Each structure stands twice: as structure tokens, then as C-alpha cells.
């Protein structure tokens, strides 16, 4: 009996802790959005974050996109040639990139590159009392620290997604047309006919939602480090960063499915 009660107790505590955590993250989102409307707006910090999250991610996005596109070109060609419809390669590559791979892979890359950095930065600021110092100066830490990151991610991720898609299509063109000899006219006209506005909208909606997920989870986990039960000191920052990257990547993939299913 004692053992059973103990198990129930552990389960109950686990559930309560997660509900508490969820509430904490909800409040975090609320305060962060409130920070958008507080003055003074830190425009220079906002631009810096755009440079860090957006411009500096270009190389990673470029290489991921070009090789993804090239693989799609080869694999698509292999599959389509079984049905004798290599001419559809252009639309296959474009639709896959616009609807799925562009938003998802961009989100995963940004999570790994910028999300982890944001989480670690805020975690360190928390453990070195820099957040406390801001509060003591009566400076809203959300407006000061979180808002520039939130807005910059929401601006940068959709733009990076667009770059990903364009570069990816070019990669597909390289392998499909230049290497495997698909007719370039068929490649591009097929694309023009099959890609509809709603496909592009779906891609854009996804990239916005993913941007919010990334920045919410990564900044939230770092900022609320003390709630995360990850121990103390520098080890806690590394653990919380790992956790944020894993959680944010999984959440992106889950939401990818949900959005696709809802908006198909």
C-alpha cells in the first residue's frame, strides 16, 4: 500500500510541476508580448538580434538548402522516372520545399544555431544576477532582454525560410536539370502550374508559427532557468540549453503536422 501511495504521490507531483511550468511559460509569453508596447523600444538591440539570428544564419541556411534541394532532385528523379514522369520533378521539388522542408529545416537550423545561443545567454544572465540587477534598476527585463529577440526572430525566420526555398529549388535544378538532364522548360513550367497561393501561404504561416515556438521556448527556458530544476551554476545553463533545443525541435515538428492537417 505504501509503495502504491508513494507512486501516486510522485505522479501527482510530476503532473503539478508540469502544469506549474506551463503556467510559468504562459506568463512569460504574456509579459514578453506586453514588452512590445513598452517604451523606450531598443531599436539598436533589435537590429543586432536580426543580424545575429538572421544575417549570420545565412551560410548555414544556404548549405542546408542547397544540399536538401540537390538530394530532392536526385531522389525525386529516381522515384518519378519509375512512372516515366520526370517532367514533374520541378513541381515535386518546389512543393516539398515550400510546404514542408523549407519552414521545418529552417526552424530546426535556427533553433540549433540561434535558439541555443539565446537560451544560454539568458541563462547566464540569470545566474550572474544580471536579471536581478535590471529589476533593481526598475528596468523591465522583458522589454529590455526578451522583446528584441522575439521581434527579431519573428522577422528573421520567415525571411530565412524564403531564402531556403529559393536556394533549395536552385539545388534541385542543379541535379535534376544540369546533372540528370530533365528538360528545364518542363522543370519550371510544372512548378508554375502546380504551386498555388495556398501552398505559399501554408509555408509562410508555418514559418511564423515556428518562429514564435523557437523564440518562446528558447528564451523562456533560459530566462526561467531557476524554475527548471536543472541544478545550479554553469552546468544548469548547459542542461537547460539542451532541454530548450530538444523541446523546441520536437514542438516544431508536432506543430508542423498539426498545421498541415488543419490547413490542408
Amino acid at each position: 500500500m505504501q509503495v502504491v501511495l508513494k507512486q501516486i504521490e510522485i505522479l501527482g507531483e510530476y503532473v503539478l510541476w508540469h502544469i506549474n511550468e506551463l503556467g510559468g511559460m504562459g506568463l512569460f509569453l504574456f509579459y514578453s508580448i506586453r514588452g512590445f508596447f513598452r517604451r523606450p523600444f531598443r531599436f539598436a538591440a533589435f537590429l543586432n538580434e536580426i543580424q545575429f539570428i538572421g544575417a549570420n544564419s545565412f551560410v548555414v541556411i544556404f548549405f542546408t538548402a542547397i544540399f536538401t534541394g540537390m538530394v530532392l532532385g536526385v531522389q525525386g528523379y529516381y522515384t518519378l522516372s519509375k512512372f516515366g514522369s520526370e517532367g514533374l520533378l520541378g513541381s515535386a521539388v518546389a512543393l516539398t520545399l515550400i510546404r514542408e522542408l523549407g519552414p521545418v529545416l529552417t526552424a530546426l537550423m535556427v533553433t540549433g544555431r540561434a535558439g541555443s545561443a539565446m537560451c544560454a545567454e539568458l541563462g547566464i544572465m540569470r545566474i550572474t544576477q544580471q536579471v536581478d540587477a535590471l529589476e533593481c534598476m526598475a528596468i523591465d527585463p522583458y522589454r529590455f532582454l526578451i522583446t528584441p529577440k522575439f521581434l527579431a526572430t519573428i522577422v528573421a525566420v520567415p525571411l530565412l525560410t524564403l531564402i531556403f526555398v529559393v536556394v533549395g529549388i536552385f539545388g534541385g535544378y542543379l541535379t535534376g536539370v544540369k546533372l540528370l538532364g530533365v528538360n528545364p522548360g518542363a522543370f519550371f513550367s510544372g512548378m508554375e502550374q502546380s504551386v498555388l497561393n495556398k501552398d505559399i501561404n501554408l509555408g509562410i504561416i508555418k514559418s511564423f508559427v515556428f518562429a514564435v515556438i523557437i523564440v518562446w521556448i528558447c528564451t523562456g527556458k533560459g530566462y526561467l532557468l531557476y524554475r527548471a530544476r536543472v541544478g545550479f551554476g554553469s552546468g544548469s545553463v548547459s542542461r537547460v540549453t539542451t532541454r530548450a533545443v530538444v523541446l523546441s525541435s520536437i514542438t516544431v515538428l508536432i506543430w508542423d503536422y498539426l498545421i498541415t492537417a488543419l490547413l490542408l
Partner: protein
Amino acid sequence: MIEPIIQFVDVHKSFESANGVVQKVLRGVNLSIRPGMTTVIGGASGQGKSVTVKLILGLMKPDSGQILVEGKDVSVMGSKELNEIRSNFGVVFQGVAPFDSMTVFENVALPLREKTRLSKQEIRKRVMASLEQFGLMGHEEKFPAQLSGGMLKRVGLARALQLQPKIMLFDEPTTGLDPARSLEIYRLFYKIQKEMGYTAVIVSHDIPKIFNLADQVVVMHEGMAKVFSSSEEIQWSQDPIIQDFVQMTMGHIYQSTAENE
């Protein structure tokens, strides 16, 4: 009688550690600090000195009791009121908590940039003047990681004083500094207090050095605060705990004076 600027009324605070053990850090602390005075809060490590500072700032809530700052209870305040109260405070944390991705200049300029509407030139003028005062000229473009411990403390002081606070909280001002540097920090602190007239709360484990500055010494022990009005009073205290503390922090010189009497 002058109204106290900070007052603790029967404050209790305990923490639960990961394995479920409840540790009572404060057990009914009563304390009052009058404006313009220098209060030194001392005691061995882990006796709740830093907790006291965090309670004053509203960074922590007590389990029970009241913490009055200018007559208002900070433990029940909303964030708006708390921000108003906090704009009276200047705080130097134990590790100074400099914003490590900003230069010394930006660190010191931050309160002025964020909380005032001064022009860029005016801010530059003021910040440079205070860097001059704190002997930090020529280091304004350095980052906190490039500074020595003493310089860092001075940056913290300069930053905390930019908005001319009514109350200065100084947590372990000399930890990690050699005696000469500690003395220099105390001299600076005292000199500026004379000029600006703020109420000072200094949390320190090396009480003897700052005895000369203190109008009131509070020794924290086992969750209680014992208040002494002068360094003599503390040295002649008959309380065995205080005698122990005095002996530990001041060494035997004082003890032998007592024996000679």
C-alpha cells in the same frame, strides 16, 4: 523620532531544498534603519544576509511578517509600485552583476539611458564625470571581463549611483579584494555618502574594517538579528554567540584588551 526608512517586522523566511528539508533562514527578524544612517549587516555565511537584501528589494517574498520601505510593505506590492520603490535604490551585488556584453561606459550609462530623457551629450558628460570620479578613466571601452575585481566594484558603484538613490545596498563590497583595495572601496563609498547623503546598507562578513563607518551593526545568527548601536557595544557584548563572532572576525587583540581591564 525620525521614521525609519526600512523596517522589518517579525520577518520569517524558509527554503525547501531539493531533498525536502526545510531550512529556516530568518525566524522573526526585527530591524529598523533610519534615513541617512549606515547599517552594516554581518554574520557568518549562510545566516541570511543576502536573503535580507533580496527581501528589501522585493526580489523575494517573506513567508510571514512585513518589510516596510518608506512605510510601505514591499512584500505585498504589485510590480508597478515595486518599480517606483526600486527607483529609490542603488544596488551593488556581491558579484557586481555587470552586463557582460556591454562596455564599462554602456554599463554606467544604462540607468541614465533607460530611466531619464537626457540627451546623448548630457549622458556622455555625466558618465565620463563619474568614471573620472571613480578612477575608471581610460577603461570606458573595456568589457567587464577585462577588469580587475576592484575596478569591477567601482563600476558597480558608479552604475548604482547614477540615478542618485536614496538608499544604497551593498552586498559583500570587498569579497575577493586585497586589504588595500577593500579600504579604497570603503573610502570611496564613505566619501560619496558624505556628498549624496544616502542611507547605506552594507552586507559584509568582514565587519571590523567597516566598524568606523557604521552607525548601527546588525549581526545575523540562527535566523535572528541582533542590533548594536556601536562597535564598542558589540565588542563588550556578554552574549556568547556575539563573543564568538567578534573573536573570529577580529582576532584576539580585542579579547586581550578585555582581559587587561
